[in-house]
């Protein structure tokens, strides 16, 4: 398989996973729409998808973690800090969700006392996640547009093969 084709397939599966993760997140932000059971399982699936997302972009994380304090560009540094904040926020969102779980954890026989602090934190981290995911998407918007255009054949075949923009 040609390297460009391999890059294309990889970018396509990355985009599909990212779109599914985003849709899951969006539905999870409206638990009254989905109902609490779907909300909880979708939230757990979202956390699992984030782990997959991080694994897919592992090279970027390692490369930037190594150069973070030295020679990374200002925009990369900003992106790194934003992603770090997003990781912390999503971790807290999932954790507080589990702490107030009414369907998923009781299924495994776990019933925690109702924690009002965790509820408030769950709501706050959800609101912050909306903002941070918006910024995260904005940061990679060119990649999203380019990959979408390639998938739907909107890029002219005569165009020079591009260097893949890794997320």
């Amino acid at each position, binding site marked *: 398989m040609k390297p460009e084709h391999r890059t294309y397939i990889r970018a396509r599966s990355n985009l599909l996973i990212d779109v599914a993760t985003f849709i899951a997140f969006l539905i999870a932000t409206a638990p009254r729409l989905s109902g*609490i059971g779907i909300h909880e399982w979708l939230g757990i699936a979202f956390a699992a998808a984030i782990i997959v997302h991080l694994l897919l972009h592992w090279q970027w994380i390692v490369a930037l973690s190594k150069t973070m304090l030295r020679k990374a560009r200002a925009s990369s540094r900003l992106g790194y800090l934003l992603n770090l904040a997003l990781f912390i926020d999503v971790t807290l969102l999932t954790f507080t969700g589990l702490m107030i779980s009414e369907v998923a954890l009781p299924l495994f026989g776990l019933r925690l006392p109702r924690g009002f602090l965790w509820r408030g934190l769950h709501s706050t981290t959800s609101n912050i996640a909306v903002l941070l995911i918006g910024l995260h998407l904005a940061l990679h918007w060119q990649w999203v547009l380019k990959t979408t255009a390639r998938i739907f054949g909107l890029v002219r075949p005569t165009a020079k093969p591009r260097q893949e923009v890794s997320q």
Partner: protein
Amino acid sequence: MKIIARVLIILSAALLVVGATMAFASSASSGSGGIGPGRDGFERRPPAGAAEGSRPPGFLPGGAFGRGEGRGDHEGGRGMPAAFELLKNLVIIAVIIAISTLISRLTDGLRPQRR
């Protein structure tokens, strides 16, 4: 093997965040008496019949969203308000992307062209 190691690294980082939050929650609550977060974030309940003002908005006792079982129930059903929540968040994200794209276009335009 490599993937398992990476997953473990991610989970350890998440555990660190959770540990720090638990520590913060219990240290923040150790000084407060009466109503407020108790140890490990579990709130001490207000005495029976106390005012309802101390709860975070949207959370009422007795179940999700304070209405029975809360399965999709809000202001009379699954209609507008619930879908509006999703739409509102989608619009917020779209606005953030639009503003960021505009700013980056403007700053690119201001940057001197390379030959």
